[in-house]
């Protein structure tokens, strides 16, 4: 029996906190202290980005994934599926906001001709999904870009040529 996978509660709470704090830091000055016009525009643009982030976090909180033998099944605001036999692109990216690039997160992008799913380290069983997707990519002899290869090597999923 396959289990439903979700983004971790802690990461969702932190993301909501970021979106809320970002909105507060940008909307409050805009509403209360009457900033200069161009400062106001910057605040409004930042507020819009943080609002979008809040919406994205809401959908991440509702996201349910299932890792099956034949593919990855996904439901956020709509249902999607990546069947391993149709996988034609795998990208693995690493992001960190720290100068020493520690405490970052991986983002995995899986694509077929018709669907695309992006998920990151905060999703339960991320490692298992990545390993399965990589095996499928190897099976199809997909060509991987340099960054993806380096990241897979760092995760011990691939050996340096």
């Amino acid at each position, binding site marked *: 029996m396959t289990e439903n996978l979700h983004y971790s509660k802690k990461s969702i709470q932190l993301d909501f906190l970021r979106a809320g704090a970002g909105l507060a830091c940008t909307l409050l000055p805009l509403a209360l202290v009457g900033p200069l016009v161009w400062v106001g525009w910057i605040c409004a643009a930042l507020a819009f980005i943080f609002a979008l*982030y809040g919406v*994205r976090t809401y959908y991440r909180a509702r996201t349910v994934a299932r890792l099956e033998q034949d593919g990855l099944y996904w439901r956020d605001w709509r249902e999607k599926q990546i069947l391993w036999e149709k996988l034609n692109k795998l990208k693995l*990216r690493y*992001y960190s906001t720290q100068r020493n690039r520690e405490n970052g997160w991986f983002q995995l992008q899986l694509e077929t001709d018709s669907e695309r799913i992006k998920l990151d380290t905060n999703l339960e069983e991320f490692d298992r999904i990545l390993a399965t997707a990589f095996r499928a990519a190897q099976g199809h002899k997909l060509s991987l870009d340099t960054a993806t290869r380096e990241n897979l090597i760092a995760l011990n999923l691939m050996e340096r040529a």
Partner: protein
Amino acid sequence: MFGYIVHRLFVMIPTLLVISALVFIIIQLPPGDYLTTMINELRAQGEAGQDKIAFLRKEYGLDQPMVVQYLTWVGLWPTEVNGEYVFNGMLQGYFGYSFAEDKPVADVIGERMFLTFVLNFFTILFIYIVAFPIGVYSAVRQYSVGDYGLTFIGYLGLATPNFLLALILLYVAKSQFGVDVGGLMDEEYIGQPWSIGKAVSVLEHLIVPVIVIGTSGTAAMIRRLRANLLDELHKQYVITAKAKGLPPGKALRKYPLRMSLNPFIADIGNLIPDVVSGSAIVSVVLGLPTTGPMLLNSLINQDIYLAGSFLMFVAFLTVVGMLVSDLALALLDPRIRLGAEASK
């Protein structure tokens, strides 16, 4: 990537707030302030009574606690203007009052801020345009005569203080060519409104300061690019690519050059404060109407709002530069780099 952008922006907001608080604390740290000095002078002349002192302190907001002064300066605390309480700080475009110049800071800075921006923009452009081809050449032709020659010039550039180079160029230009290279425009354009002639004059006068300020940055960048590119060129994949018959140009451009560009991108943020602080002394030597000499005077005079505004300007540019370089780096090279610290 969207998540990364938001994370990075989220870090930027408290960073700017902390920097602004630190700037304010640092400029307040030396004992006394401009007004105290002024009052002491008035006292010595027997012109200052306690009433006048109290009036001046209230007028300039120096009787308030430091936190209130800071929040007022940033524009997050209302002040009384013509009997009404309004927000009037940096967020509203009011950078405070220059005691030394007896004018609002914005009026004092005026054109200087723009000229500083132009000078630093061209300096950074110069650094990148000159360092890139030389760095690539030095790495590709390692230990050649050209590499040794350029490396020697690079070391000279690194070792020569900017102000010394400025003095030498001033002397050579005057004694050998009879040309005065000081200033940022011909005298007839000083204080005049902007015109094509004035812009051309500024561009002509930019050449010397850009070379002087940019030399050390260029030398450092050449060294870094050369070292990074050499690291990449000695990797297995490049040797394999060459062994399989890939043309040398393509074997260079395809991956090694791209990978070695990281320091170029990562240095956008670091270059700005270096160039701005480096240009301050050069501006004094060359008599450039930039913010550098004014910053120096304001720090000596304890003209807190003027000094604070300059420092905030530099800090803001640095934080924005860091943001741009981080975003570009995340876009171009989203790899995990194990032991990145150790390899620096």
